């Protein structure tokens, strides 16, 4: 057998350390994407044509260009502006920024789905703009799009290996390191691959259960 179980067991701790970084990067990046995406979505509804068109094209630009390029851009370009971030933080910003372009579309669809009557009723009650948004519209809009948003968490998890290119010690990076050191790539790569699939498939199943519960609202 080409596969060495003993070796596989030995390297598992290293790989799991990488997994922790992967999860860290994914979750924090996701939070950034959720918040930033909402900002984009709200700005898109601004009455000022300059604002909403600028946001529209910025978001489109981010959405149409590769995440890897954006990560490199941030990694190499940010320091020259004086901001010194660690590789991990840069990675989180990169993931968050890229995925905010997706979440903003999701929010927009959810907001558009809120019946016009809700807006009108809120305005008729003379609620201030902020209350209309945060008290009436957003709660309804967001609830409807929770399953789609959750999907992007899984997608982001699968994009996290890209962070290795900017030296973040996430899971695939650990696998490569282990492989390069020992010249045995089969076990680390396969374990990492399998771990990815397991986490993704489990999350998808969980997501489907979530969809079921929120779908019947």
């Amino acid at each position, binding site marked *: 057998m080409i596969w060495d179980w003993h070796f596989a067991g030995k390297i598992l701790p290293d790989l799991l350390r990488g997994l922790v970084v992967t999860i860290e990067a994914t979750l924090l990046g996701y939070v950034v994407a959720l918040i930033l995406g909402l900002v984009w979505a709200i700005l898109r509804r601004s009455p000022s044509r300059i604002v909403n068109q600028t946001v529209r094209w910025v978001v489109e630009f981010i959405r149409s*260009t590769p995440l890897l390029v954006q990560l490199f851009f941030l990694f190499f370009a940010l320091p*020259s502006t004086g901001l010194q971030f660690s590789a991990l933080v840069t990675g989180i910003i990169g993931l968050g920024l890229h995925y905010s372009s997706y979440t903003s579309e999701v929010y927009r669809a959810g907001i558009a789905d809120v019946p016009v009557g809700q807006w009108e009723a809120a305005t008729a009650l003379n609620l201030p703009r902020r209350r209309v948004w945060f008290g009436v519209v957003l709660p309804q809009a967001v609830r409807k799009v929770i399953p789609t948003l959750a999907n992007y968490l899984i997608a982001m998890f699968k994009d996290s*290996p890209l962070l290795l290119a900017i030296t973040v010690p996430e899971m695939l990076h650990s696998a490569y390191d282990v492989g390069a050191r020992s010249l045995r790539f089969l076990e680390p790569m396969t374990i990492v691959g399998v771990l990815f699939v397991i986490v993704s498939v489990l999350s998808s199943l969980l997501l489907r259960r979530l969809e079921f519960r929120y779908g019947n609202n």
Partner: protein
Amino acid sequence: MSDVLSSYPLLLRGAWVTIQLTLYGSALALVLAFVFGLVGLARSAWLRAFGRIYVEFFRGTATLVLMYWFFYALPLVGARFTPMFAAVLALGLNVGAYGAEVVRGAVKAVPKEQYEATVALNMRPAQRLRRVLLPQAIALMLPPFGNLLIELMKGSAVVSLISIADLMLRAQQLRQSTGQTTSVFLVILVMYFVIAQVLQLLVRYLERRADIMLGRRPGREARSPLETLGAAK
């Protein structure tokens, strides 16, 4: 910036590699999408389960991880792929799994009444699919396929990590030789953006053709009133 712009032949060569990867990758993805999409609609539960495994597995992998596995791990069990082959395979398998769900969903979305009409005309199951259901399903598939095409193009940038000389890698080379980081990356971001917009136009063109085929839009068969008057039967 002028350094960067004068190196445009290098970048164009990189862009061409990116476009090739996109073309080959999407060709493979399209084939896999239809094969496994239709398998997912099969009568046999075994066949459907088999298709389900492919879809769930490759939807759950990351292209980069898959590519690394093909490139680094597979040689150790005997199969040696060129970087290009590993890249196209990884891209195609991954996006093809998403495509399979699109195909399956689109065929199921064709109104049930169309299916019933084919039963009433005593068509065989393969005929129902080929002559009536798939043509209508294709119109439903195009928008999601368009998105997947762009995703694939973006995904191709990871091939630079296994040293394939695509646009991303050329950018790295240029960065190292000119030291002009910001300009280099801005230029290639714009180039990727342009490629994406061109792909979008292509997809929108195909969507229009599908609409014409389904009669939702006047096409060549629309005749002017004079023509209709002149056509005596």
